[in-house]
């Protein structure tokens, strides 16, 4: 069981619409659910985790309804955003309890603790754990039954860079193993670094879906900026500006480069190498200067 389907799902709280007619399918691999705070990410994850009923539409795992279906948790592992755990237990006791609730035992708990590299602190009380340690024990509790789907709500919140890298590495591996890993984040670089596929949610609506670069290219009405260095910047600038795919070129003397604004992505990317070849110009650097998720995201939010 690996495919989560969200079909025309809406969820409102009183007269506030948190999720508005979203349809998406999430399959194996790592998917990032991206959106600013208050976009409806947690609402979506809660519905996928069976802790919230959709007001409209359906949320299913391989065709099986998730809401009010306790049996579904054999296939789903959940890492909630909230901090609260059974703080009076040790890490090991906590993971063993989670294993027992799945009908499993100490062996599986030990394996899960090893997966998240928490064996060294497993006999300490959870109340003494740092944020990153808590997060890893939560991960272990979610992995204890070897689920095919892993849902994580803002898993990197409050983690230091090293812990963040470790968790990313772990999630990447889970995705490579064929699990469906979905994590939410409002931090763009996290999603960019980890997710092969992203779903963007803005103000309760599904704003974009797909590979990050594909999403970027889909937005053809948006100007794309490039930083280009060549052995003859001015000649290149003259040749490019003659084509309607380019709307502006700035000669950046300090950088020793051209800053080009292209309005037609596909045409420009074909034009640039051809113009360079035709004019005998050697291209030294061609780099998208705004290919960061931040710029895509701010565009989506503004749209």
């Amino acid at each position, binding site marked *: 069981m690996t495919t989560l389907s969200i079909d025309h799902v809406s969820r409102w709280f009183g007269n506030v619409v948190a999720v508005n007619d979203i349809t998406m399918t999430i399959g194996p691999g790592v998917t990032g659910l991206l959106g600013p705070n208050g976009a409806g990410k947690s609402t979506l994850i809660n519905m996928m985790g069976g802790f919230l009923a959709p007001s409209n539409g359906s949320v299913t795992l391989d065709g099986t309804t998730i809401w009010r279906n306790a049996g579904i948790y054999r296939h789903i592992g959940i890492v909630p955003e909230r901090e609260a755990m059974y703080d009076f237990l040790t890490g090991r006791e906590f993971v063993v309890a989670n294993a027992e*609730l799945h009908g499993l035992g100490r062996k599986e708990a030990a394996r899960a603790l090893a997966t998240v590299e928490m064996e060294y602190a497993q006999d300490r009380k959870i109340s003494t754990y740092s944020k990153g340690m808590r997060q890893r024990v939560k991960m272990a509790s979610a992995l204890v039954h070897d689920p095919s789907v892993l849902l994580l709500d803002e898993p990197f919140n409050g983690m230091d860079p090293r812990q963040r890298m470790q968790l990313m590495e772990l999630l990447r591996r889970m995705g490579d193993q064929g699990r469906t890993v979905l994590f939410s984040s409002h931090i763009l670089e996290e999603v960019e670094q980890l997710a092969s596929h992203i779903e963007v949610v803005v103000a309760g609506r599904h704003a974009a879906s797909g590979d990050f670069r594909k999403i970027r290219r889909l937005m053809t009405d948006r100007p794309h900026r490039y930083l280009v260095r060549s052995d003859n910047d001015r000649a290149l600038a003259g040749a490019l500006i003659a084509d309607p795919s380019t709307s502006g070129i700035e000669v950046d003397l300090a950088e020793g480069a051209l800053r080009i604004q292209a309005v037609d992505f596909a045409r420009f990317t074909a034009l640039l190498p051809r113009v360079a070849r035709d004019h005998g110009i050697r291209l030294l650097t061609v780099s998208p200067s705004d290919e960061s998720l931040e710029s895509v995201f701010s565009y989506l939010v503004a749209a």
Partner: protein
Amino acid sequence: MSTTTPTAPPASGAATKAALFHPTVARLTHRALLGRRRAMILFALPALLVIIAVAVRTLTGADDTTAGAILGTFALGTMVPLIGVIAGTGAIGPEIDDGSVVYLLAKPVPRPTIIITKLLVAIGVTVAFSAIPILLAGFLLNGNSQQIAVGYAVAAAIASIAYSALFLLFGTITRHAVVFGLVYALVWESLFGNLVPGARTLSIQQWALALGQKAAAEGAISSDVQLPLAVGLLVALTAGATWYASRRLKALTLAGEE
């Protein structure tokens, strides 16, 4: 880090066996209940009762009327419902409040199993901290003359069951379960129960007294409710509250932080 590939989930289905009791849920509930600061009251109230019993016995000697008054008013009227509130609401309320109940609910364990297990733990704790000290205090007060100690201990044990079920239900319905529990126990049962005779018919304390009356000597304990009605209401309340609490848990919504 070790790696594993996803395998088929455990086929045994052991976790979903329709058992009504789950030892892991019981262990977590029990440790959570006795680990909180609130649990101090669980120890303080029975200790106070025993101290009062020793003091009264020492100062006034064995007296059935005094024994009945202390066990009826302080022990059954105040201590049992208070302990019931702490154990009943504490068995689930804090977990729902802080969200840690997710770790219980994101498991293939039937919701009624979770509720019934928590109810049994709450009953156990309430009986241990109320009925047993009452029995001990009764013996200290008048040496169980007229079976007063046994009568009130039976009443306390019966009341423990109903209070636990009711207050556990409150814990699944509202974040203010303790307040509601105290309002029921202290305002409805104690205040209205004393002022409005009709209110006593709908009082767990009176139902429990009806059973206590049966256990004690003739005329030692009295209740405003007839035994068959009391038993019927006790069973109906306990079963109804447990059923509804399971229903609440099945559809428990964890609203987003957003």
